[in-house]
């Protein structure tokens, strides 16, 4: 008896493996091949390391640092896409939850001596808790109003960090957060950080992928498309929204945890600025409509492009960066994901929409 047997069916693939049966619906959902994706991701920095560095005048360490930042963007973007689909609302406040997670990790480790292993669940729960508290707004406020409430949240936290600088440390933040990795060799450290961050992204991606392909993912897609239809066909929209918003908020907060333990300090005002939001927003938008895989591609693209423009264009670097991104918005109507996915009409890809009413 063979260990692995593939049984293609119309619309789905039945896999017999290790005496168990898995079905993958290819039919209405996404094109997928996580293994190839993962290997590409892991090999990408190596490829770039050997081929790209020097070409644009980037050095390996700078590139690796940029890619760690790409992973941070992906860590925020992946759950954010899930959140947008599951709540049918576009949030402009993901960086609010990043700051929540970062401050939780920093304050707990500084004041109570928590280790990174303890602050990780704490950050997640804090993010989830605040997400739960705020989740009613996913039900009551619609369209642009939701965008705007979430846009105001980071401003409020930003004001708070200055107002209560005794707690949050204002622009100097909270120093003395224990490092996640410290081997003594800084280059090795950077590399391990890269792989830790990519591992986190992959774990998130794995969960997100599972959710998106589950019955819940499908129902989230329906909510994203038409809430009233979802309700009239027995889908408990409020429940799915609250759960999605809560858990994804927690997941976004984990990115803050990573930032705090990666930099050894957490400075909220840095991350609560609109400029950070714009990067996150462009990451999810250019990623492609609701496609979590595209988010990772665009996070890598944007972070690398930013490094290239920074070293090549001097004072004009930001202008060049945003002009390129703007052009991409024009030529990639379905984002990076659109370049990659099979162009078949029967595929369903949830589209992120901000409804006007």
């Amino acid at each position, binding site marked *: 008896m063979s260990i692995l047997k593939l049984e293609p069916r119309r619309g*789905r693939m039945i896999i017999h493996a290790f005496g168990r049966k898995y*079905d993958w619906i290819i039919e209405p959902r996404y094109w997928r091949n996580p293994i190839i994706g993962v290997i590409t991701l892991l090999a990408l920095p190596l490829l770039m390391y050997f081929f790209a560095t020097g070409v644009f005048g980037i050095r390996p360490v700078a590139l690796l640092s940029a890619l760690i930042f790409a992973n941070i963007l992906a860590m925020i973007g992946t759950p954010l896409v899930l959140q947008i689909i599951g709540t049918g609302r576009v949030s402009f406040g993901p960086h609010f939850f990043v700051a929540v997670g970062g401050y939780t990790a920093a304050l707990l480790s500084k004041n109570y001596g928590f280790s990174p292993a303890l602050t990780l669940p704490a950050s997640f729960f804090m993010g989830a808790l605040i997400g739960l508290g705020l989740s009613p707004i996913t039900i009551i406020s619609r369209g642009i109003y939701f965008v705007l409430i979430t846009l105001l949240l980071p401003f409020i936290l930003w004001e708070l960090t200055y107002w209560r600088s005794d707690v949050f440390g204002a622009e100097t933040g909270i120093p003395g957060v224990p490092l996640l990795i410290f081997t003594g060799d800084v280059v090795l450290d950077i590399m391990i950080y890269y792989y830790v961050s990519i591992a986190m992204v992959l774990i998130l991606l794995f969960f997100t992928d599972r959710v998106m392909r589950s019955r819940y993912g499908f129902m989230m*897609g329906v909510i994203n498309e038409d809430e009233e239809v979802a309700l*009239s066909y027995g889908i408990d929209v409020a429940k799915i929204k609250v759960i999605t918003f809560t858990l994804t908020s927690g997941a976004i907060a984990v990115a803050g945890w990573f930032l705090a333990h990666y930099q050894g300090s957490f400075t909220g005002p840095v991350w609560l600025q609109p400029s950070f939001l714009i990067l996150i927003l462009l990451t999810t938008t250019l990623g492609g409509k609701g496609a979590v895989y595209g988010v990772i591609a665009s996070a890598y693209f944007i972070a690398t492009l930013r490094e290239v423009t920074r070293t090549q264009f001097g004072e004009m670097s930001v202008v060049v960066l945003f002009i390129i991104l703007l052009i991409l918005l024009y030529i990639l109507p379905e984002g990076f994901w659109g370049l990659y996915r099979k162009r078949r009409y029967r595929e369903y890809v949830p589209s992120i929409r901000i409804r006007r009413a």
Partner: protein
Amino acid sequence: MLEVSNLTKRFGGVIAVNEVSFEVEKGEIIGLIGPNGAGKSTLVNLISGFYLPDSGKIRFLGEDITKKKMHERAKMGIARTFQNPRLISNMTAIMNVMYAVLGSERGSKLSLVEAYGEAAYYLDIFDMLKKRDVLVADLPIYELRLLELARALALKPKILLIDEAMAGLNPAEAERVSKLINRIREEFDLTIIWIEHVLKIIMRSVERILVMHYGKLIADDTPEKVVRMPEVVEAYIGEEVV
């Protein structure tokens, strides 16, 4: 089975549904007619839970569902179709049936694959299986109507509220739809409330007719009797003048 008593709904100063009461027995097929703006769709929206009534009560299977949420009512077996087909146009035909399967009471135990299989069954009933992978945006109105019915059926409803199944169809198509409705009623042991603007077909298909005018229920009888009622005739004359 369904018991509506003194149901009232206001929008601003307009009373859309005014003190409406009626009962539906199991297995009945009821037509709900009335001129434009008579409050028919509002009544359907009240029963399905889209709006909450200002006063009055709705009982279903002996249970008070007046305050129940829309998705809970759907799970209990109240399915509806929409006046303008309201399907998710980014999804294929079969996906539009799948979520109704998942939303039904037994759906919480189904995997996506099982739901897919069931959805295929319901599509087949309406002879739509071959169109399962077509995006809804690319379907003609007739097939949208069928798809709406298939989706409603996938919820395994006890009562089906049909909000205009004929609008936009040519007479032959309308005839086929009407036949299909009667067929599924027998096959699935359904109770049906059928709102229609076109009177001809409905008169032949239903056993009992409710007539609404300006939010009020003005008649509740067999088709033959209803057409002779002076109030009804008057209401429809008014309509035709407009």
